[in-house]
């Protein structure tokens, strides 16, 4: 019986209301327990102790991540590290190889990462890479919004059948939740076009707004652990904040039996833009944060910018095309039949650029202006606004106004009149940091009920011990501590010690299998079969992801509400 | 078009531009390259009627294909689709006996666009095993 006792730690476990208490953590057979009898003792010596980090949105596995690696050998060459006795070779900065992803996240104290966009037709690819990422527990969100089945059911108002289809997709792709990316826009990109929230998508005769609402209803009928996860229309366009707010309003009336939001909108930095063009571009983080403060049905993650070169990638094909037209850099696009699309282009966030400076400010502004940290998550939309390895920088910024002032002084001067950041005094405390990096994210994903994001009895024995005292105020030291843990413990096993990876167990893959009425499924299958008979280029029987690609499964069953 | 410094030009014959590529029968025998069907299909060189006449070669007669990189005997075949001055050989051991391994810094040998000279010959076409033997020792 493997037992671990972590003593003398100052524990931040927000889901259990523990805000920096000296407290022992006991782990037996990988789970947190009340007490232990003959444990391996880890003396935290007054350091900061948190549950393993939970990333709600990151692009770590699958077709477009790998296309990013393939077409950017110049990025691959940035992160080269030789294999060791424990670790395999590493490469890449914004598009690290699978091994580096696992090691680097674990060193930051993270033990769960959500892959944010999985094209259903290529789901097997996403899972093949997830299997190859060491240490991290994981899950993936299938893209469902530009899907012909979805649009046809939304058009017909058949919400039960839509739910039956969503259930089928979750099972077929070993998916975790409903992802929406530029609804309608990516289908229109099939013809080289795009659309906004209330435009009608030709042929399918639905609007993006209807798609979002329909999927939100289907999601709640299935009592999914997570809400719909939305990348709203018009990402990256000046003036898009109105559309973002309008999108929030769409689902205000949607009911859920779960104790969570009904919509999570992601990388909100990209959706909080004012102005009418890049010339009068300005931050509208206050308007977005104001909405979130006044309403309880929506949560956001920030998608904050990390300065430097990165690789942007999204299922939002038309958006990547616009970006490529701005930069003239290389551009890859991959539309996926009947379902979705994707685009990839490298991008440099420069502190000398007025636009990038405002973007840089907006992410942090959102985090600082949303009053309740339970409504907000720390992300960089890795690697879109910057690689995940930049999280410690953001944490130190949020915790230190001084650091923000110093950094702002190095940015384009536009920061002082088009952004709000210099006027904000708030500083996060460690409890709030713990909320936006594990407590909130686990709860928004519904994973707190499955042992993630907290250290209560029965929780997974995933613990991060940061090499800092709770009183630390030096931003540089805070950043360093959050980059390389003193210890990261995964299921009761030490995987990182003194900033070095010492063990590389396999992670689990979480997926949801919603059950619904057989008759409903049968009726849905008639339509689906027709799609496979006539339009897909893969057969229905070859489509679902086989169990072989999820060797360490964690299944969450749900039942459709009648 | 193509300069090679490592080899000397060997013999004179009809100058052609040699390309190699796939065919259906070659593909069908990818897993049975020791078969007669593969031999019949791949150990050959397609030429335009005019080029065949220039060489004084009838279909199925042997020709020697010479390049800076080697020489090989194959059967000639008439192909109307191949323009004058072009020789087509199905990809495989015979074509590869005379193509270039110089990758010009790209990792890719030169399988198409090789200066070649073709002449009539009485020599016999080597079977695949015999051809591979020429690389030994």
């Amino acid at each position, binding site marked *: 019986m493997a037992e671990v006792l972590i003593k003398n730690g100052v524990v931040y476990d927000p889901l259990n209301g523990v805000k920096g208490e000296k407290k022992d953590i006991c782990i037996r057979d990988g789970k947190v327990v009340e007490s232990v009898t003959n444990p391996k003792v880890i003396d935290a010596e007054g350091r900061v102790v948190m549950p393993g980090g939970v990333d709600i949105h990151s692009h770590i596995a699958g077709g477009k991540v790998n296309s990013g690696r393939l077409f950017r050998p110049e990025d*691959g060459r940035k992160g080269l590290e030789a294999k060791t006795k424990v670790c395999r070779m590493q490469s890449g900065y914004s598009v690290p190889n699978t091994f580096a992803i696992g090691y680097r996240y674990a060193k930051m104290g993270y033990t769960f990462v959500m892959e944010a966009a999985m094209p259903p037709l290529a789901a097997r690819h996403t899972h093949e890479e997830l299997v190859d990422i060491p240490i991290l527990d994981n899950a993936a969100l299938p893209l469902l919004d530009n899907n012909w089945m979805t649009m046809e059911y939304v058009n017909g108002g058949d919400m039960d059948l839509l739910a039956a289809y969503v259930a089928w997709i979750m099972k077929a792709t070993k998916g975790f939740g409903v992802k929406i990316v530029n609804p309608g826009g990516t289908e229109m990109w099939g013809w080289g076009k795009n659309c906004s929230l209330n435009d009608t998508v030709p042929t399918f005769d639905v609007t993006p707004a209807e798609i979002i609402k329909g999927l939100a209803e289907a999601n709640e009928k299935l009592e999914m652990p997570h809400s719909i996860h939305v990348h709203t229309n018009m990402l990256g366009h000046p003036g898009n904040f109105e559309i973002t707010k309008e999108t929030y309003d769409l689902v205000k009336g949607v009911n859920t039996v779960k104790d969570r939001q009904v919509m999570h909108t992601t990388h909100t930095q990209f959706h909080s833009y004012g102005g009418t063009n890049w010339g009068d571009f300005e931050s509208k983080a206050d308007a977005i944060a104001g909405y979130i403060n006044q309403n309880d049905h929506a949560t956001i993650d920030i998608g904050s910018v990390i300065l430097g070169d990165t690789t942007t990638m999204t299922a939002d094909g038309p958006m990547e095309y616009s970006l490529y037209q701005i930069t003239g850099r290389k551009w890859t696009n*991959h539309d*996926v039949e009947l379902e979705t699309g994707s685009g990839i282009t490298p991008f440099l966030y420069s502190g000398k650029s007025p636009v990038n400076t405002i973007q840089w400010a907006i992410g942090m502004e959102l985090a600082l202006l949303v009053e309740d940290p339970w409504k907000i998550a720390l992300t960089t939309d890795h690697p879109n606004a910057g690689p995940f390895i930049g999280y410690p920088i953001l944490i130190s910024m949020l915790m230190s106004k001084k650091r923000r002032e110093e950094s702002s002084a190095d940015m384009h001067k536009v920061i002082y009149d088009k952004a709000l950041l210099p006027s904000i005094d708030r500083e996060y405390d460690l409890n709030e940091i713990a909320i936006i990096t594990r407590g909130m994210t686990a709860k928004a994903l519904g994973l707190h009920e499955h042992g993630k994001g907290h250290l209560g009895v029965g929780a997974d024995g995933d613990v991060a011990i940061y090499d800092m005292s709770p009183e630390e105020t030096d931003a540089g030291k805070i950043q360093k501590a959050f980059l390389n843990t003193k210890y990261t413990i995964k299921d009761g096993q030490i995987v990182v010690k003194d900033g070095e990876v010492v063990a590389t167990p396999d992670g689990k893959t979480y997926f949801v299998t919603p059950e619904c009425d057989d008759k409903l499924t049968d009726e849905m299958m008639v339509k689906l079969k027709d799609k496979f008979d006539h339009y897909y280029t893969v057969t229905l029987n070859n489509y679902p992801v086989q169990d072989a690609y999820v060797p360490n499964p964690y299944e969450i069953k749900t039942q459709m509400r009648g | 078009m193509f300069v090679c410094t490592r080899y000397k030009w060997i013999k004179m014959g009809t100058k052609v531009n040699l390309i190699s590529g796939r065919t259906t029968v070659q593909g069908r025998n990818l897993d049975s390259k020791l078969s007669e069907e593969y031999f019949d299909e791949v150990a050959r060189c397609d030429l335009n009627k005019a080029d065949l006449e220039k060489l004084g070669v009838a279909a199925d007669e042997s020709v020697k294909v010479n390049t800076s990189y080697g020489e090989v005997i194959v059967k000639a075949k008439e192909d109307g689709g191949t323009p004058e001055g072009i020789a087509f050989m199905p990809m495989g051991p015979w074509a590869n006996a005379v193509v270039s391994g110089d990758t010009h810094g790209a990792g890719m040998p030169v399988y198409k666009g090789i200066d070649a000279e073709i002449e009539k010959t009485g020599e016999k076409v080597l079977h695949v095993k015999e051809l591979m033997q020429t690389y030994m020792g």
Partner: protein
Amino acid sequence: MVEVTDVVCSLCGCVCDDIVVEVEDNKVTKVKRGACSVGKSKLMGHNRIKSPAIRVNGELKDCSYDEAIKKAAEILAASRRPLLYGWSSTVCEADKVGVELAEELGAVIDNTASVCHGPSVLAIQDVGLPSCTLGEVKNRADVIIYWGANPAEAHANHMKRYSYVSKGFWTEEGKKAKKLVVVDVRATKTSKMADVFLQIEQGKDYLVFSALRAILYGHADVVPDEVGGVSKKDLLETAEMMKGAKFGATFFGMGVTHTGARQNNIVNAIQMTRAAHTHTKFTITPMRGHYNVAGINQVCTWETGFPFAVDLTRGYAWYNPGELSATDLLIRQECDAALIIASDPGAHFPGESIKHLAKIPVIQIDPFPNPTTEFADVVFPAAVSGVEAEGNVYRMDNIPIRLRKLIDSEYPEDEAILKRILDEVRAIKEKEGN
């Protein structure tokens, strides 16, 4: 007799997955539907390598798998510059073990992309690739271009399943409502079907791409009366056809990657597609040859960071195709041992490189005897993926499809053989104390 449906073909990059076969007495007795003649031949089977063997005094002598594993591991562990090559006609599960073996040995790992679409990869690394899945072409495309590709011979089901001849959502009339453009040096079975056949002079692809690019960007005035054997009139017409497309799809083959300008041809092809994209939707896709050459590129990329020609001597990945491709290594006579799996350099490499392969110890893993067997020193017969073994592969448009196992094999799978070699190499290294 059992009928098996949804059989996945393990021959070319089309990876057709709607094949129906009959199986009786652990044999595929009939291919009923779905496969082209090439795929059918694959499914029905061929002569096999019967036994593991080790070359002694110039002759292959049958031996046990244990003996062959031991010998192979000894060769590899003793090698100072091993080359692990092939990986395209096997499944990703085996390819992963291959990368691990290369890492353990500090080997160079390269795959058949370096002799088919390696230049395409280099071009993609330069400018990217605006592409799509084959179903997008099926459902939307009304202008199809095959450039330096002859699918009627090399990818026989491509037009029927995915492009010109297929019928989809917005293309229900099939080829009647589509235009087919073929660009090639020779008249081929494919060019005979074309609405427009541009017969270009060999090696002039770059010029013709440039001319079309210029026209599509509105600079027809700079194009001379004839480019690469094609008249300006034909070029203008082709450009108009491209501009008028609702959805255009370009497919290119080894006619473009194998000729003089190599990756520069492909960069230009992609730039032409971008130019067309300023008028309408246009995509471009390489016609990948082997059924899983796309897959080894995927696996190699997510594990090492790079798709082919990767040197692991330093313990981390070093990528430099013009230096580290199998051909480059062999021409420089640099590698001192090679493991060849799921490919046949004996048939498909230039004679110059085969000369060096014939000199060094070569380990071959393959179901079938082929020219490489003639100089291999250790030979492992393996199960046929897609007939006797299952596993994931990536279609030419990078869609993952799991091959099915139809019958039992008396031979082990590639993955199992590689794992045993890896274990044995580790055991040797442990004994030697490193």
